[in-house]
């Protein structure tokens, strides 16, 4: 197992820059997720780590060795493809043992390791079957088996759950994380599904337009997004944005939205008068008739224990996650109270976060 370091990685296809100066480090044994919308460069980054693409510039270090321009076969990595890429002309056992055969292992050793992988993944009963008749879940397990049998320095997974139906995806999420907890293998996992990323990752890098927007734990990324893009991409429903115009002096802990003064984390920099955006997660909004921040209820989605209430305000539409026993009628005028510790502040232009007390560590969970 090994640490993966990516330094100033850049990749262009002709005029198009797919990945721009990416930097991140995946610690030994960490489950790392590259998250972003399609076309953001996350798969290209993964393929460069695997050696399936060569970077235009930058370095990739695997366990301390510079592998930037080494062939895929020389990197001691395992790759799980979205479409699994099980060889259709081989049975399950041969598929799992294929890489060992390539490396010239003895038959008995291959057999032992394939059986071991089959036991870990609980697929011993299908080892001698043809891969063409397998269910998608079993194919997924065989693809994982092919990866773990090599005992590689790291696992690279390209949307491995993308081809599964949603119910099964949830189950496999749990299995994958469980497998990681047992094997403690450094894993780089690419997905566009933020729920998958949040539920499995130790660390997440959110990518957009070829850039790593934010790199951190799921908690950091959720609670302290560094840009409106990250705030909007993570969370379901995503963060609400209240747009207003103001200038803020260093140390200010209050924003004026219309007639309402909203308490928020103190600003650590002077902000010239401009378009600003206040970001608030749906669960950090509660109803309070005394609050001067007001809006009209647009509708509510019942989700069991909670409900998501949509409210029209003069600063834009917001969604609040509340207990489902609170009765709200469409059209009713309500006051909204925002949790002052958990508010994010962004520049309206460019969407970068403004440095506030929010970024001073400390309030996970």
């Amino acid at each position, binding site marked *: 197992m090994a640490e993966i370091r990516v330094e100033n990685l850049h990749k262009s296809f002709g005029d198009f820059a797919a990945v721009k100066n990416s930097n991140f480090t995946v610690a030994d044994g960490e489950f790392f997720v590259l998250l972003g919308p399609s076309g953001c460069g996350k798969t290209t980054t993964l393929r460069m780590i*695997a050696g*399936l693409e060569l970077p235009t510039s930058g370095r990739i270090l695997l366990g301390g060795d510079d592998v930037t321009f080494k062939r*895929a*076969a020389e990197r001691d990595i395992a790759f799980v493809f979205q479409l699994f*890429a099980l*060889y259709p002309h081989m049975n399950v056992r041969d598929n799992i043992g*294929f890489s060992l055969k*390539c490396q010239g292992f003895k038959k008995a050793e291959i057999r032992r390791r394939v059986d071991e992988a089959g036991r870990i993944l609980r697929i011993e009963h299908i080892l001698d079957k043809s891969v063409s008749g397998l269910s998608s879940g079993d194919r997924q397990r065989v693809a994982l088996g092919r990866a773990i049998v090599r005992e590689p320095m790291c696992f690279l997974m390209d949307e491995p759950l993308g081809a599964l139906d949603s119910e099964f995806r949830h189950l496999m999420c749990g299995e994958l994380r469980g497998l990681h907890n047992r094997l403690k293998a450094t894993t780089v996992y690419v997905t566009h599904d933020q729920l998958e990323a949040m539920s499995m990752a130790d660390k997440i890098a959110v990518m957009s337009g070829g850039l790593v927007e934010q790199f951190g734990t799921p908690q950091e990324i959720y609670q302290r997004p560094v840009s409106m893009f990250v705030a909007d991409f993570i969370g379901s429903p995503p963060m609400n944005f209240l747009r207003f115009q103001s200038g803020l002096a260093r140390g200010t802990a209050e924003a004026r939205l219309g007639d309402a003064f909203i308490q928020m984390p103190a600003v650590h920099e002077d902000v010239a008068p401009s378009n600003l955006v206040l970001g608030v997660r749906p669960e950090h909004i509660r109803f309070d008739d005394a609050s001067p921040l007001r809006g009209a209820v647009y509708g509510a989605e019942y989700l069991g224990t909670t409900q998501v209430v949509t409210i029209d305000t003069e600063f834009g539409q917001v969604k609040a996650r509340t207990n489902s026993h609170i009765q709200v009628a469409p059209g009713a005028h309500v006051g909204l109270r925002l949790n002052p510790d958990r508010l994010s502040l962004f520049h309206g232009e460019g969407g970068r976060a403004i440095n506030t007390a929010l970024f001073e560590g400390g309030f996970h969970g």
Partner: protein
Amino acid sequence: MSGASTTAHSVVEPSANSKRLAGFLVILYAVVSMVPLAWIFATGWKTPPDSISYPPKVVFNPSLEGYCNLFTTRTRQTAEYIAALGAPNGECDEVTRRREMVIAGASNYLPRFANSLIIAFGSTFLAVSLGVFSAYAFSRFKIPLADDLLFFILSTRMMPPIAVAIPIYLMYRALGLSDSALGMILLYTAVNVSLAVWLLKGFIDEIPREYEEAAMIDGYTRLQAFFKVVLPQAATGIAATAIFCMIFAWNEYAFAVLLTSGQAQTAPPFIPTIIGEGGMDWPAVGAGTTLFLIPIVVFTVLLRKHLLRGITFGAVRK
């Protein structure tokens, strides 16, 4: 039958009557196209007088004379000379002596047939090998001007190959490739390779890249991955392509007439030159044609499953 409507019939399945009609048309077409083949086959078993009798004989006494004449050359002898010979050595001897002739030696049919085999298999192998490598390159790599190159390759099929017969004839004479098996193999390969590239590119495009990438991560080089992973999955396409190339090279007549005359002559230009006494030896021609059909029929039957899948490949996603 009552007119009561039932829902027992399927909406998407053809009805029994349309199936019957389709079957009838297929059989009719098969019969019409089989008539010349049946005629050739029958002629091979006729005697020379029977083969040119008018009206044509549909019922006749089969004779080995056509096959005997195909494989032998004969000389006319006097009746006394033939009477002085010992007992005839086998059926062919007897048939020949009845015409007051004796067998002088073997005909050129077998060497010509062997030429056909060598040239057809050689050019098919070359065209498919070149085709599969180029198709893979076009399918997987970024090649500058790939579309123009593919169009250029296809453009060699946009005229009948025989249109360039004269330049090729002159070129072959200058290069010393006239009447050589190598020359014919190169020529048929050149004609077939465009078909092979285009057909195989379609098949290889359908094979997901992930297979090779997985194999390359598992420790293979690209070339090993190509042989171990891509080729087995392209087997169907390769078989279908091989049949098409084989049929062209086996049946090609015009270039064979033009460029071969002696040692490299293939069977198609040889068969019509079988002359007997007083004109064409039609039974020998029929016999030669019948035997000539056998290899291509066997080859096609062996690969027919691939051929059918090959033609419909990619039409429906599983």
